[in-house]
Every structure is written in structure tokens, then in C-alpha cells.
């Protein structure tokens, strides 16, 4: 999977990861993939909800052992 950009939101709490994601994805071209790293416990539910609502495609959501969440979003 070719990632066009990575956004590290570790240390940020809701709603900042989503708001930063919204801003950063605007800089991408349709079809490009954004990788977001988050450690806010709400992120696991928030990213699928955000993707469904905005029409961007959630390719993968992966939780690491240390609790970090890696999200891969394809811009619509």
C-alpha cells in the first residue's frame, strides 16, 4: 500500500485527530492514501464514522499492542 502522507496525532484527544485528518486530506488527490496514527481511545470508532459520513474509504484500521491505532484512508 503506497501511502501519500502520514499524519501522527498521538497525544491528541478527540476531536483533534478527526479535525486534523479533515484538513490534511484536503491536500491529497482523489485515490491517494492517508495514514493516520492515533492513540485516542475514541479513534477506533471515530475514524470509521468519519469515513462513512464523508465518503472517504477506510482501507484498514489496525491496533498495535501498545494501543496505537493505524488508520489507512483512501481519499474519494
Amino acid at each position, binding site marked *: 500500500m503506497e501511502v501519500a502522507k502520514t499524519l501522527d496525532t498521538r497525544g491528541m*484527544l*478527540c*476531536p*483533534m485527530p*478527526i*479535525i486534523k485528518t*479533515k484538513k490534511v486530506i484536503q491536500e491529497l488527490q482523489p485515490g491517494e492514501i492517508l495514514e493516520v496514527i492515533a492513540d485516542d481511545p475514541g479513534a477506533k470508532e471515530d475514524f470509521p*464514522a*468519519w469515513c462513512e*459520513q464523508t465518503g472517504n474509504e477506510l482501507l484498514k484500521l489496525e491496533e498495535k499492542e501498545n494501543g496505537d491505532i493505524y488508520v489507512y484512508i483512501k481519499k474519494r
Partner: protein
Amino acid sequence: MAEERKKIAIVVSESSLDKAMMPMILATTGAALDAEVHVFFTFWGMNLLKKDYKPKLKGMMKPFTGMMISKMKKHNIPTFEELRQQCKELGVKIYACSTTMDLMDIKKEDLFDKSIEVVGAAKFLQIALDADVTLFI
């Protein structure tokens, strides 16, 4: 994904720190979800639109405001001013209640942003009537 943008209408009637943060967080998140967000500030809520206004905790909790703000900072929660600015950047529509402005002698130039619309109840209710979500804070 919905073809038509969802609409969120929020009324803010108080100006304590807790009641300042909640609508700002919901408004910015709503905008990030591609919803059209309208926030109407009325009564004490109008204080939140004043330049340099610093919301404090309510009543007996007031002396602990600084403690709460530094705790929020430690947890990387954006400040009220930052959230207010984010609202503007994300295109959240902000309305000031015309009656409250008159009652509390607040001038348009006292408000933090020139694009704030001064409206009456009918205008806000017209927006709320066809909103998908309406919240009163």
C-alpha cells in the same frame, strides 16, 4: 455517504468554561464530518463571542478555572480560543442573538469575528426547522 449535506443547529445559552468547550468541540467535529453547522449564541452564551473573553468554571468551581485549563493543556485539549478559530476555518456558521446584543449592550465590533451574523429567533428557527440535529447547550 449522504448526497445532501447533513445540517446541525446548536444553541449556546451559557458562557461557563464547560458549556463553552462542548459546543465548540461538537461544532468543529460536525464540520469535519462534512455537515453544515450553525451555532446560535444567545443570552449568557453571547459572552463567548466577545473578543478576548475567557470562560471560567461556574459558581463555587470558579477559583479552580486555572487548574482545569492547565489540566486540559496537559491532555492536549485545544483551548477555547483555538476551537473558536477552528470553527471559523472549518466554515461553521456563527450567529449572534440580536436581542441579547441590545440587552447587554454588545456592539458588533466587540465580537471576535466580522463574519458573525446578527439574527433574531425566526432566522435561527428557520435553520433549525430543517436541521437533522438540534442541540441546546
